[in-house]
């Protein structure tokens, strides 16, 4: 019998997954979505996602080294940021733009705020939002899905030399890969009142961002994470329910002006955003009811932006605004402490004190 005893304070056992295990599960849940994206959009999509992930991981590693700390790449969070960021980009986006946005996502969206656990906004969406503002045309130039040559040639815009503009949409027609402007189902509805069928939206044979088109696989990934207790189901449920309720109300009032609820729920980035972006633990509220309010807020914003805004899609901005109100929701919704007549608990994350 050895006499060397370790002393630790209780509890002496632990349950539940650790941070890196949760991260790897999220990556696993995104594998089918990524696989389908590559299948639907071919080499260009593969290049986009690979560049996004590589940029985010290298950027995280470099920033850790720069600040003199051990690299935290192994926790998997940079891979998720890169993966989600890549999946929200148009498949034929010039790769140099992908790299710039990836650096912004990790550098500005995450490390500027203090790294894992400190970022108020979803880093992947920060990167995408800045790209959207900086390069509005390439960010709304899409590839049609399932083009015959997608596995043999890249889209003409993918390999645009750094700091130069990609070729205009419409070039390359009839030769290799076609890229077109404003051809997503949401844009088709917004500008031409053409509705895409629910079957196409579910299966993802439409144009759109790299990983947002196949609603079925995205939902499957989400259900997998919910089943493993690694995602708060209230957030996607509240978002989808709010979008469905508000859009069916609008459609009921004016069927010609507004699309149906199933079109609204299945099109665009809603499913990917509701399942994988809004549920980022760092940027979402901590309490159950807080998550419901947060989800309803995002859902309402999505409907408002899509139906009444100038843009066809609004999931990204809705989630970023949701992230922004999260601290307020956490201050507002505080569980009543046991044994107190009413809630007197301080709310929200406390402000960090300067290290002295």
């Amino acid at each position: 019998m050895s006499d060397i005893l370790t002393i630790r304070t209780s509890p002496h056992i632990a349950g539940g997954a650790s941070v890196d295990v949760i991260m790897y599960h999220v990556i696993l849940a995104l594998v089918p979505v990524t696989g389908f994206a590559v299948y639907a959009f071919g080499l260009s999509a593969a290049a986009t996602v690979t560049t996004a992930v590589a940029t985010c991981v290298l950027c995280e590693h470099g920033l850790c080294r720069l600040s003199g700390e051990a690299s935290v790449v192994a926790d998997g969070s940079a891979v998720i940021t890169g993966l989600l960021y890549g999946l929200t980009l148009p498949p034929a986006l010039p790769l140099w733009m992908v790299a710039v946005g990836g650096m912004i996502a990790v550098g500005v969206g995450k490390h500027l705020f203090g790294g894992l656990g400190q970022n108020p906004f979803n880093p992947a969406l920060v990167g995408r939002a800045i790209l959207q503002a900086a390069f509005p045309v390439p960010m709304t130039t899409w590839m049609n899905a399932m083009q015959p040559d997608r596995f043999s040639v890249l889209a003409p815009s993918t390999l645009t030399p750094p700091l130069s503009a990609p070729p205009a949409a419409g070039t390359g027609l009839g030769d290799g890969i076609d890229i077109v402007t404003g051809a997503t189902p949401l844009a088709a509805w917004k500008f031409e009142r053409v509705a895409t069928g629910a079957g196409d939206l579910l299966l993802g044979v439409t144009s759109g961002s790299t990983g947002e088109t196949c609603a079925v696989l995205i939902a499957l990934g989400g259900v997998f994470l919910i089943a493993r207790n690694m995602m708060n189901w209230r957030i996607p449920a509240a978002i989808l329910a709010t979008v469905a309720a508000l859009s069916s109300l609008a459609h009921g009032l004016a069927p010609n002006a507004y699309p149906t609820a199933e079109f609204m729920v299945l099109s665009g980035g809603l499913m990917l955003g509701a399942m994988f972006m809004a549920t980022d633990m760092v940027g979402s509220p901590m309490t159950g009811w807080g998550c419901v309010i947060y989800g309803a807020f995002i859902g309402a914003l999505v409907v408002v932006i899509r139906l009444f805004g100038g843009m066809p899609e609004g999931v990204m901005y809705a989630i970023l605004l949701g992230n922004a109100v999260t601290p307020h929701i956490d201050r507002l919704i505080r569980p009543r402490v046991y044994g107190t007549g009413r809630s007197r608990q301080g709310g929200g994350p406390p402000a960090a004190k300067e290290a002295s």
Partner: protein
Amino acid sequence: MRLFTRKSFAHGVHPPECKDATRNLPIRQFPFAPLLSVPLVQHLGKPARPVVTEDQEVVRGQLIGEADGWMSVAMHAPVSGVVKRIGLMPSITGQMVPGVFLAPFAASTQEVIEGTPCAVDSAEPSAIARAIQQAGIVGLGGAAFPTHVKVTVPEGKRVDTIIVNGVECEPYLTTDHRVMLEQGDDVITGIRYLLKVTGADRVMIGIEANKRDAAKALGDRVPPDLPCTVEVVEVKYPQGAEKMLITALLGREVPSGGLPADAGAMCINVATTAEIGRLLPHGRGIQERVITVSGPGVKKKGNYRIAIGTPLRFILDTVGAEGDISRVFMGGPMMGQAASSLDIPVVKGTSGVIVLTSRETGPLAKRREYPCIRCGYCVDVCPLSLNPSALGLLAKNPQYEQMAAEFHLMDCFECGSCSFVCPSHIPLVHHFRVSKAWIRKHKASS
């Protein structure tokens, strides 16, 4: 009698039970160690005053320390033998405490002497409380709060329901389970004393649904004249915490900073109840208690009646250690305290001696601490609906006063659920203990 209701509290966790190895093993008498170290403070409060001298011979059950004031209880000789020394000995808290070293007589029959009985029918309530103090009875669930203080209802308050706590929600532990199965009559007798001393109307025995045999056994023993019911509660940790069990059974909440009596209830461990029923009719004191010795590092796991003051080293030598032992703790794995030395003796509050090997502790020790990712798991499990995440961030800053003033730090009873689930491996409960100690110290000094 309701046997199959399923009552519970909000939140909580489900740690692995680990009770199968010992739940069916009857209580067995443990041999006496060659030298026992009996601390004079085994309870919350003032140490007992020693009434023996070095080289004095004592008989098993004889008083060796008398209660020093109201917040103190008596101490009795766990063996017939000779007092070797009165001095300092190691304790589980890490501090050296005063105590009596006793060497048993090898040839003694180890019969326990009788004292002045306290009859349940004739004794006054105050006399019963005094008898409980003289019997040295403290909360055997682990807290070791003097039982006579607990059963004395404060002036101006009324307790209508006594809750006998047979939940035993900690993994590994099966002492209360075996006591309920084997000492049912003692429990019933103890309940009679409790009803008399508190003036309560009724008694509820709360038992977790994984001990239905005990619930059945006790239910069958309740005589028709006793206002006592057996209630089965959901298997969930920390169901056995005083506040949680009161809420599960009565639907009432103990006010923040208040006593169970403020909710009209009193919660007492079932083994403590059994000791009252076993000792008071004979005027005896506690000299031993039932302890679950279990864990992956133990060969002969079991529920043993072990003399108070038996050093851990003797227990491990007797049951046999297995593998590379790396941690020994007293109590369950969720709230138990790790021993820094095997010379530490078991005391009245020791419900279990659990031994882990490096196979269990190694992976936990190697884990890296991540920043809080605000996942909210801790908020989901805290039985008091505190915000452990925010408390943890404040403790690191540190802003102890804000933790106590705004986040109800002092309500935390350190059940460990938040640390148990934290995916970032933040030792939340450890931070809270440090913070609470700081607050207490500053309150006392100001």
